[in-house]
């Protein structure tokens, strides 16, 4: 028996297949693109293929992320807030605060020692301080997302980035470049700006250690450092952090099966 969590985010879709011993049997990651339903299906099938398990063994599937209602083959939907909480608490049981920075959302979540969501706070209707903000900055500088984090760590004199707007920050960066500021100093400023914004969000729910940093942006080492600096505490980061939502969804799916839930619909609308 296996279960799966499918996290259809604004930028990427992720899936995790878990076996009945809570071991990860397979994962997948792909761009969501325009066809959300297909992205969900592909994520699930690729994770199944990676696990070398058959779809018929899947007892329960939970969809999460913005596209959770497009996981047509799923048995239920749970928000990514609940799923990140479950996933983070599984990997780091001492987690009390979760910071999730995704493609267009930043969330701060306070959880209990049993992983229950007690409070959460999210960015307003704007992509400032999210993955898109970093994306815009990387683009204008001409680097990839994977390059900007390490580069930012070489900064000597971080530049203060004042813009919180994802669109206007580009012109601010161009102005700094034109003045001959160093790329790494600008990048460090960008990371610290997001760190400050995120720390403000975290303070709304309380910075209770341990803090676990999840979501795609947590892969960025520069962002981890900036967040730790602004929060004043060290943070847990897992190599699986990008799959935290999908992992949480799969864990909740497994708990549902253990609680007697029954799989209803086969994947791909075959039922």
């Amino acid at each position, binding site marked *: 028996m296996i279960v799966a969590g499918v996290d259809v985010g604004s930028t990427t879709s992720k899936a995790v297949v878990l076996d009945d011993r809570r071991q990860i049997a397979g994962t997948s990651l792909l761009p969501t693109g325009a066809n959300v339903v297909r992205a969900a299906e592909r994520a699930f099938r690729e994770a199944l293929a990676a696990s070398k398990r058959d779809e018929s063994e899947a007892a329960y599937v939970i969809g999460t992320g*913005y596209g959770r209602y497009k996981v047509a083959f799923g048995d239920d*939907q*749970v*928000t*990514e*807030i*609940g799923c990140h909480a479950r996933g983070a608490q599984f990997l780091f049981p001492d987690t009390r605060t979760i910071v999730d920075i995704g493609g267009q959302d930043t969330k701060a979540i306070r959880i*209990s020692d*049993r992983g*229950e*969501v*007690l*409070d*959460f*706070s*999210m960015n*307003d*209707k704007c992509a400032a301080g999210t993955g898109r903000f970093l994306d815009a900055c990387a683009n204008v500088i001409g680097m990839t997302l994977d390059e900007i984090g390490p580069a930012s760590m070489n900064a000597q004199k971080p530049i203060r980035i004042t813009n919180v707007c994802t669109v206007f920050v580009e012109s601010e960066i161009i102005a700094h470049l034109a003045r001959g500021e160093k790329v790494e100093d600008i990048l460090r400023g960008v990371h610290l700006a997001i760190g400050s914004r995120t720390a403000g969000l975290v303070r*709304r*729910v*309380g910075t209770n250690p341990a803090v676990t940093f999840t979501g795609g942006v947590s892969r960025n080492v520069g962002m981890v450092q900036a967040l730790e600096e602004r929060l004043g505490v060290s943070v847990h980061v897992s190599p699986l952090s990008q799959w935290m939502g999908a992992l949480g969804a799969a864990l909740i799916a497994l708990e549902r099966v253990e609680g007697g839930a029954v799989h209803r619909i086969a994947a791909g609308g075959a039922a």
Partner: protein
Amino acid sequence: MATTTQTTVPPDLGKTMQRDMLAKYYGALETANADGVPVAYLFIPGNIVELTQCFGFLPVYPEINALQCGIKKVAGENIIRAEDLGYSADVCGYVKNDIGLMLKDRQSPFGRLPTPDLLVCNYSGCNTFIKWFEALAHFYGSEFFLLDIPYIRESEISPGDVAYVVAQLKELIARCEARTGVTFSEARLREILGYSREAEDLWVEILHLARERPSPFDSYFEAVFYMAPVNMLRGTPESVEYYRQVLREMRARTDERRGPVPEEKFRVVIEGPPAWPHFRAFWELFKRWGAVAVASTYSKVGGLYDQGVRHDPSRPLESIAEYAMNGYTNWNLAKRADLLRRYVEEYEADALVIHSVKSCRSFSVGQADFRESFVNELGIPTLMIESDLADPRYFQEAQLRNRIDAFFESLTQRRLTGATA
């Protein structure tokens, strides 16, 4: 009254009657200018409609027109029309809707609105009100009267504040007499106030029925319809009859243990105005979780009747003055927070939901502090969501749904495990 629930109550009697009353009201507005009926523009919070009624004025409420435009899905185009004229994106959506309507020759989906003969700016906690009616006075060339309502800074209203408002009301009476040629009759005012009081008593009785389990009605998504007559058309026998009928309907629902959702799973208190341009979609986000508002502050913007505020025929001008100061947004933040806390307790609510709207600073100021103190000091689960009351561009359904779903998910989970904030 004992036999009222024995006869069959038509489904949605209160909403049907309200719709008919508003249709009649807007019908009268449409011909007011041509018929020579004087028209007074008023704001809802703490309005003095009883007084203007003494002189035969028909009231026009630009806030109501704005919310009606929101529901009828034309607020967006009105707002853009006002922005084209130069109004900034940061200006209140209600104001821009009104300016947009004016630019369209006051043609609304509910008929053509009359021009004002008198603009009574019953300024109550909202600075924008002053600029709004000043702009209308400029555009229409109408008489403008600023009724300065002191903000309630202390826990109680001082006698000096009452005297200050009463003095202004006397000045207003003289202005109304001069404009209409009608001599003020205190006897007539007392008669009108008697109807107001009766409607207010009945409305409070209805509001208190939400303490039942299940609550017979949603004290936010349904109360906003039921509250229209007591906010707009007080002082008439029709409004008294309206609340008799709504009470009858709610008692019948209570007897049948019927509520606004098939199964009441969560009882919430809601703070802030609704997202009028997406009203149904907004309500659905709560309904699907079996969440019912058992108390709300928006249904008290007209007046805090449930907190004992009443028009009183034996103290005509004094009670109008006290009422004018007791709109919800004219209360200081400590009083507002205390009211919210008492609502959660008295109505046995599971949580507080704050809908913060971009347009209305009188509402949204302090809401982040409410959230923080409710969660951290009182341990009451609190959800804060944002959109707007008039501007459809600020309603992001996916993001709202995400927050609302996550909130009720966590309440469900905590109910199973008994965890507290």
